[in-house]
């Protein structure tokens, strides 16, 4: 039975990545020869090594007991913190720097346990002003302050 879940999960991940990349390289790239390596040669070698390492980890996880359990995944902070850049990337060009920073920081701030809505809104507003001044006016980042989604100003 599985004695080391951490090692087992890592092994599964590496084996899967090795297999996926190996198959992609095999099916779409020219391998070539050791003398004249094609674009697929080095990737195939690496994928094979990764797969073997992954398989070794999976094997080991059945035998050697693990140090620590994986622990709980903090879904709320993980999703909100990683979601914030997604929000920014989706809307920044359309709605502009000021509103985009406002929305992005608000989404992120909800990851904080016990943060109240008024505080989050106040912080987001302050950061939007700060980022607009620093990056849009002083740093000349190529994002409009207020984007085309709000019409001509």
């Amino acid at each position, binding site marked *: 039975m599985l004695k080391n879940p951490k090692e087992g999960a890592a092994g599964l991940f590496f084996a899967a990545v090795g297999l996926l990349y190996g198959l992609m390289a095999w099916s779409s790239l020219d391998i070539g020869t050791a003398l004249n390596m094609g674009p697929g040669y080095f990737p195939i070698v690496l994928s094979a090594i990764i797969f073997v390492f992954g398989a070794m980890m999976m094997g080991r996880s059945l035998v050697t007991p693990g140090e620590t359990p994986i622990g709980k995944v903090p879904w709320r902070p993980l999703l909100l913190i990683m979601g914030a850049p997604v929000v920014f990337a989706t809307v920044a060009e359309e709605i502009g720097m000021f509103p985009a920073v406002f929305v992005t*920081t608000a989404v992120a701030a909800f990851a904080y346990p016990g943060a109240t809505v008024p505080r989050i809104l106040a912080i987001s507003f302050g950061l939007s002003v700060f980022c607009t001044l620093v990056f849009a006016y002083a740093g000349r980042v190529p994002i409009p302050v207020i984007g085309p989604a709000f019409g001509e100003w």
Partner: protein
Amino acid sequence: MQFLDNLALGFSVAFHPVSLLYCFFGALLGTVVGVLPGIGPLAATAMLLPLTFGLDPVHSLIMLAGIYYGSQYGGSTTAILVNLPGESSSAVTTIDGYEMAKKGRAGPALAAAAIGSFFAGTVATVLVAMVAKPLTSIAMSFGSAEYFSLMLVGLISSIALASGSILRAMAMICLGLLLGLTGTDVYTGAPRFTYGFIEMYDGIDFVAIAVGVYGLGEIVRNLEVGESSRRAIAAAKNLWPSREDLRRMIGPAVRGTAIGSLLGVLPGGGALLSSFVAYNIEKKSSPNSAEFGHGAIEGVTAPEAANNAGAQTSFIPMLVLGLPSNATMALMIGAMIMQGLQPGPSVITSNPDIFWGLIASMWIGNAMLVFLNLPLIGLWVSLLRVPYLVLFPAIIAFSCIGVYSVSNSAFSVYLVAVAGGIGYMLMKLDCEPAPFILGFILGPMLEEHLRRAMLISNGDLSVFVTRPISAVLLAIAVVTLIIVGRPTIARRRKEVFVEEE
């Protein structure tokens, strides 16, 4: 004494008022960002990179060097005052630095870090100036086989940086190498692993990965642990160390400098390694070894000196070979290329003003930090008092804007989220990102040199052992692998990393 002439040229560039100004701003901004918990030199440099785009090559590199040192220094400040290493290379500083701060000796601890670093920086600058020229002539004789073997040494030594098992570290290296190959193949033009995204034809944006894994991943980890881990900030009064303190600092500073200078040259995060090694040597050899772990000033001076010397000498492989010795150096190389400079042995002859100016501004950056960090302690402490609820949304906003402006596309900002998510999960499984990052940087170069070496040797693998320099490098790689694989060392690595937590 030709190197003195060269240094004079360098200082004439670096002491130009405009250069001094950029160096100052770089160091200041770097420290401000570096002081923020969870942001190391890599994330700080990535975030501040856009600010240098408008400058000419000399000034942008000088400013970047300032940012690099500033953020490294900022990390030490947080390590001492709040027991939070901003980056892994100041992790050992927390052990004795925070203990000193708890006893009300935060001032002397910060001064010890600053003075130790400054001493190390001075020595290492002279060293870099002395060896750079002779080393470039050696570098000229480097063929593809030598480059390949040297990179192998770097990759293998990066295993020592990871706390998990060697198997996992090696898997992470290979994963980094593999993902580093993403994009158009230089020989045939075939797109590789792009999943059909045109944005990935030039490879995966390194800045996005660095920001995602080190910036955002760290935030999730901090939120997971909760506010309680951000302990009270020790007050820093009475800045100056006593005469007794100074006397105890001399030996560790000298030994730390020597260790740092040697290990820094190694491609593969020499600075981090050197601070661990320096700390352990002091702990063993010091007459005050009982005090270690309870606020020994030697335990602050030695790793900080080693760390800074290593940061300095890690410029050698970059300037001489065009090989990044760590992730931050990779960013610097990226910045050089954006400025139209091809890093490598030719820079020293084609752009001597840039080469020596950069070396001189390393020293000036160091000096500035002593005058910046110590008097402005009050400012750093107030920065540390900013509530995390304000801090982490700010870091996310800066990261998004920074990544967007480096690549000028929203695609890289999506990548930040993907890299951050995967990076976080892997860290949860005890797979450390440092070996991955190094593999990712070296991947394309490693492949190119392997392919070229095989072409030149007619597909004969023995070329790696018949060429003497390459054979020596491979032998070093094998010995390193055996050393990091020995159970006693493995156990010790674990201890060192457990201590930091």
